[in-house]
């Protein structure tokens, strides 16, 4: 009988001690905010384009953390969606936008036609348009995220979205992979094989 009493007392004490520890820990190590939001935001492309329906990438990250769909980011494309699926532990979903393939674009202002209305400057989420009232505007190409937001407000339609051209710096070595159809020529093939053998022999000696 006493053993049961001892067990009850001991377990109660233990429960109290652990409860105190847990209570203390919950105050001491309290996590401010939701860390998953930062992780989601790190995956988003930060174009701040608002195509997801949220005003910027951070609000969409918050929405994802609260259970919104992960397929609302056209600039990020399928790659971002898959990463988000991995992070959030949900099944990948096809992008709900038509823009499946995300071609990086940069805004370009046809400067002859610009009337200097500053509307695009106000629309740009990353302050990548330079200009002043009644003066020509221009895009700082390296800071442009290609979000499209400046195209709509332009009253004279002088903004184009130009795909980023491939140059020697960003070439991805995929250009040379043009499929070549080899017309079968027996004599040449046989000669090639013989020569191939000869080269291999040459390399051995």
């Amino acid at each position, binding site marked *: 009988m006493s053993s049961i009493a001892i067990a009850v007392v001991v377990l109660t004490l233990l429960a109290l001690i652990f409860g105190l520890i847990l209570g203390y820990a919950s105050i001491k190590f309290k996590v401010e905010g939701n860390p998953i939001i930062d992780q989601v935001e790190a995956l988003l492309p930060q174009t701040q384009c608002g195509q997801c329906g949220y005003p910027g990438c951070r609000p969409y990250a918050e929405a994802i953390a609260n259970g919104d769909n992960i397929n609302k980011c056209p600039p990020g494309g399928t790659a971002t969606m898959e990463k988000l699926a991995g992070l959030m532990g949900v099944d990948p979903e096809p992008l709900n936008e038509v823009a499946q393939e995300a071609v990086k674009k940069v805004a370009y202002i046809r400067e002859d036609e610009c009337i*200097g209305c500053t509307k695009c400057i106000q629309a740009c989420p990353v*302050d990548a348009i330079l200009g002043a009232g009644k003066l020509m505007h221009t895009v700082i190409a390296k800071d442009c995220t290609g979000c499209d937001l400046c195209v709509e407000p332009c009253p004279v339609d002088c903004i184009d979205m130009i795909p980023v051209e491939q140059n020697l710096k*960003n070439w*991805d070595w995929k250009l*040379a992979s043009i499929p070549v159809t080899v017309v079968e020529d027996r004599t040449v093939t046989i000669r090639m094989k013989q020569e191939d053998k000869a080269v291999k022999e040459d390399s051995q000696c």
Partner: protein
Amino acid sequence: MLTLLEQIDKGTLWHSPGGIHPPQLKSLSNQSAAKRLTPAGQYRVPLPQVGDCARLSIKVGEQVKQGQQLTDGEGFMYLPVHSPVSGHVIDISLQSSNHASGLPTLTCIIEADGLNQTIDYQESALVELSNQQILDKIKQAGIAGMGGATFPSHIKLNPASEIDLVIINGVECEPYITSDDVLMRENALEIFKGIQIINQLLTPQRIVVAIEDNKPEATLAMQQCLARFDDLTSIVKITVIPTKYPSGGEKQLIQIITGREVPTGSIPAQQGVVVHNVGTAYAIQDAVLHGKPLIERLVTLTGEQVTQPGNYWIAIGTSVEYALQQVGFNADRNQKVIIGGPMMGYALPDYDVPVLKGTNCILTPSANEIAPDVEEKACIRCGECAVVCPALLLPQQLFWHAKAEEYDKAASFNLKDCIECGCCSFVCPSDIPLVEYYRVAKSALKNEAEEKQQAEQAKIRFEARLKRLEDEKLAREEKSRLAAEKRKAAANASSNKNTVAEAMARVAAKKLAAEQESKQDKPATDKSAAVKAAIERAKAKKLANQSTISNTPDENASTDNLPAVNDKKAQIAAAVARAKAKKLAQNKATLSENDTASAQNEPVDDKKAKIAAAVARAKAKKLAQKQAESASDMDAANSQVLSSEDQFSQEQAPQVQAQSEIGTGTDSDVSEPLDDKKAKIAAAVARAKAKKLAQKQAESAADMDIQSSPVQSSQEQSSQGQAPQVHTEIGTGTESDVSKPLDDKKAKIAAAVARAKAKKLAQKAAESENKTDVESDDRINADALISPAQTETSALPVTPSNVSEPVDDKKARIAAAVAKAKAKKLANKQKLSEKE
């Protein structure tokens, strides 16, 4: 235990992992001495060749001398580009580049004129030059690593850390290439002069010239030459290393000479070692001692498809196609032209590209020299590639992930340490082009990293923008709060006193005017008119007091509007009184005299005016009775008018003001014979102005107070005083029109935009005008405030519709301006409603 230097002196060599022994095939090109090609007629120099950006210092059509600098620049990696020939610049445009992609790059095309004019090459002795001068000369000569990587040499010659060991790379491990071999055989003296300069700059403890054992002639020539340099014999050591590919790689060579491995992510200079190519040493002495920039280099033209293989001094910018034609090139079917060696080189998609600083070999293999592209088979996990990898990577794992496009996993297998030597592809039994996969994966990782950096940058900019907008908003709010407080304080202090005083002043002024009028009419009626005026004055005072007192507590919903509304009511009350006084005075006049007397006063005397006057008179009488009955009724009426004004403040208030201004405008019309056009313009300008004012008023009710007072004061002004004002308004209107350069493109576009808007808005405006006209007429009738002259003006608002018709150009422009103002107003309204 021997120190590293002792071991180097002893000739100890270490083993570098991996590597292969491909067929050398160097004898094709190293049997003959270096030759020169017949100069080409045209040269294409890419700008810039090294570094990201540069400034052009030449123009199309300009004459250039050989060795003349074509670009300026400041970047860390920047190197100047020089003209390889004397001639003139015929074009600067995008031309296909000497690159595996063949993508177009900015190229300066120079046509040789055969005059062989050169810039003044300044010879100088090494002892006269300081280290900084030497470095400047090397930089200005545009010297980049001649082994193929084209890293700017002056950076490597000015390292941050102490350099113990300099390795001069004469290994040349790639098959086919013999340019360094031939250079060492023929120009050993110049190479050692270059080594002297390197020695002076870096002051290392040892300089090792590394040469593979398949170049005995070069080794001999170098050893013989070294004996002639007394100062170098104690420092420089010529080391022969066993032939193995890729011993010539920078990190591999360091491992062979010192036994130390260069850690991943660091550069050899951090280990106290610097590696320079023999070709670089040659170019350095040319630049420092002879002042010659890097405009030509020794290139191996080899392969079975050229009839005269060998090494040739080729000016940078010469077309590869031209160079090959000079040595008897006959292209095969599916001919490949490879820049560099067969292991690490790249095939050109287009032969007509220039030779660059790093182009050490142009290889034209026949079909039996290079295995044809065979179909890639599945990886059998044999592990051969891992055995031969000089960087000790796991090529099969890299391939696995690269093929699956899991580039981050490939990166975790240290993909970035791959030197793309091609050993793994060479030994692969499944003919997998492994290096191709690695290159794609590497560029994808590079682009990904860049995108990530851009995203971070965008995020920072976005957040900065949000903060800026927030700050601006707070500042605006603070400003408006302070302004409101100020206004409130001012209004509280003076509202009651001021309104009463103002009303009194106004009534006094009216009385004076009436007196004058009655004096003019008939001095006999003066007294009775004065008595009437006095009675009215008293009434007005009473009314003003009542309205201010009674309305303050109950009528106003928002406390912000309080002083303003009070003020307005008082004004209206005063206006009522004023009008009555006027009318009474007039009545007196008309009664005592004939109806024709008024015709003398006003030239626009017609039947309508008379009838209107009669009606007004009757109404005034009625109203006077009513007023006598109860003043509070009048208050209620006033408040009604006020509330309706508040409701339609956007539309009605401007109309009221516009009317008043038009009224004054036509007053001046009457007093001064202005022509019709001007009056119309004045009306239009006045309307636009009134709109603007009204807009401001609508934005904040508190502003009403301030805005209404100038309008009021303008009402109080005499008609003669008003006339010049109208004139100036016209003046400014036309001036602004003139000052706009109409032929300017921008102005045209703006006009076009405005016109489009104007068309849309013209209809709306006309509608609203009609509406407000009716409304204002109603109100006027109800209050019976209007004098005959004013009823006349109430017919005037029709004129703006005339103005808006684009009858002539000027009018149209003015109409456009008016429409623009309207459009702005409407836009603002929409915005407001959207916000709400």
